[in-house]
């Protein structure tokens, strides 16, 4: 009886989508409709709706994400991968496309690619509980990420909330430690939205520089992902007068200005060693922070 009621509700729900699409055949809601059909196992109908919608709206990335899910549920994993890849071509920052690809890669045993895709998903949507859960599952509970067993509200990052290995009360001492390294001129810790957290590298008037650092890290991560070239560890940029290093630390970014003519390798090694020490203290191992 319950099943019958559920079916009735489902049909009326679907009737609404049908009416909507009949009224506006170009509506993007076809993807939502197809996804609902997929969720109840009506894969053939879902695929037909999605194909029709994509024929009308071929640049709609979410449509390809849904199509990929339908194909995946139908056992056509290669075609699913192609659909999700197409979604990323249309929208390189589509978190769901990164997530679905990440799951697929992990299922196939392609651990590194899978992790990179999941990290990309989290990068573009930090409030993505499924991705956090998957990352925790793949990395183990000591990875510094909270799983999604907490509610969505708890999962949402709040100002001052940092990865477990570097908490807000440690920012200043951490910055001081980096400042003591040879050749380091200035250090700043920023959030993944460019918010200043500790230290000082740029003048307060140049907050756009912080945003640019965030963008640099995001773009570099996306490029490495597309290239299948592993996860980002750091970016060192030298100009004729200055040199700076951007080190992604989970959802934080460490910016280090170094003496222009110093040995890049030596400074890198010192920073790496310091970070490894901090990591070891907090997590009990010496793994790299961005892995």
């Amino acid at each position: 009886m319950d099943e019958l009621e559920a079916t009735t509700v489902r049909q009326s729900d679907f009737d609404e989508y049908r009416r909507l699409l009949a009224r506006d055949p170009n509506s993007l809601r076809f993807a939502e409709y197809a996804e609902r059909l997929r969720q109840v196992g009506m894969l053939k109908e879902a695929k037909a709706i999605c194909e029709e919608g994509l024929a009308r709206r071929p640049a709609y990335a979410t449509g390809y994400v849904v199509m990929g899910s339908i194909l995946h549920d139908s056992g056509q994993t290669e075609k699913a991968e192609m659909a999700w890849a197409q979604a990323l071509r249309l929208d390189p920052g589509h978190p769901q496309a990164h997530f679905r690809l990440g799951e697929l890669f992990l299922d196939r045993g392609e651990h590194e690619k899978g992790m990179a895709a999941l990290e990309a998903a989290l990068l573009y949507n930090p409030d993505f509980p499924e991705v956090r859960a998957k990352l925790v599952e793949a990395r183990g509970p000591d990875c510094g990420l909270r799983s999604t067993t907490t509610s969505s509200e708890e999962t949402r990052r709040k100002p001052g909330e940092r990865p477990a290995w570097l908490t807000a009360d440690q920012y200043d001492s951490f910055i001081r430690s980096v400042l003591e390294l040879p050749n380091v001129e200035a250090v700043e810790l920023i959030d993944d939205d460019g918010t200043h957290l500790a230290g000082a590298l740029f003048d307060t008037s140049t907050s756009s520089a912080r945003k640019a650092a965030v963008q640099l890290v995001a773009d570099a991560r996306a490029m490495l992902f597309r290239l299948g070239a592993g996860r980002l560890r750091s970016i060192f940029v030298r100009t004729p007068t200055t040199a700076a290093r951007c080190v992604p630390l989970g959802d934080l970014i460490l910016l280090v200005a170094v003496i222009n003519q110093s040995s890049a390798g030596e400074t890198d090694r010192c920073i790496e060693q310091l970070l490894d020490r901090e990591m070891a203290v907090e997590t009990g191992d010496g793994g790299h922070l961005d892995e």
Partner: protein
Amino acid sequence: MNESDTATNGAGLSTALDTLLQTSGSLAGMLSSEDGFPLATRTKVPLDRDCFAAAGAIIGQLARRFVAAAESEAPDLVVLESSKYKFVVQSVSLGYLMLIAEPTAETEPIVSVLQMTSKQIACMASDTPGATDTDIMPCNHIDSPTDRSAREPGEVRQ
């Protein structure tokens, strides 16, 4: 070298890239135009030549955008480290010169050789105005790789 792949007939560029690949831990040397078109590539391992050459230009451009926002001068060197590779990119007159190395490779020797090679390429380009990658000839006046003052203002694109 286990595998080599040259996208150019230019003996000069090939020689320059061969010099790059003598660095310990190096995997590939690439010269790409500013828009990411591969001008010359030499690889020790199988890599997607076009994609990686384009990556060199992307890295260079990302860094340029970053320093522009920080109101600094144009970057002459970028080192991007990933868990799989170390990308060392230097701006040159023809575009971007990139050495891809193992992630554990020492950065300093790579930077020295890259500077020497970029000087060599700049020299080739200036010796043969309008030269293409197929007619650039080797340059004989190369500074020592240890000469840290080898970078000259005109050599690096500003």
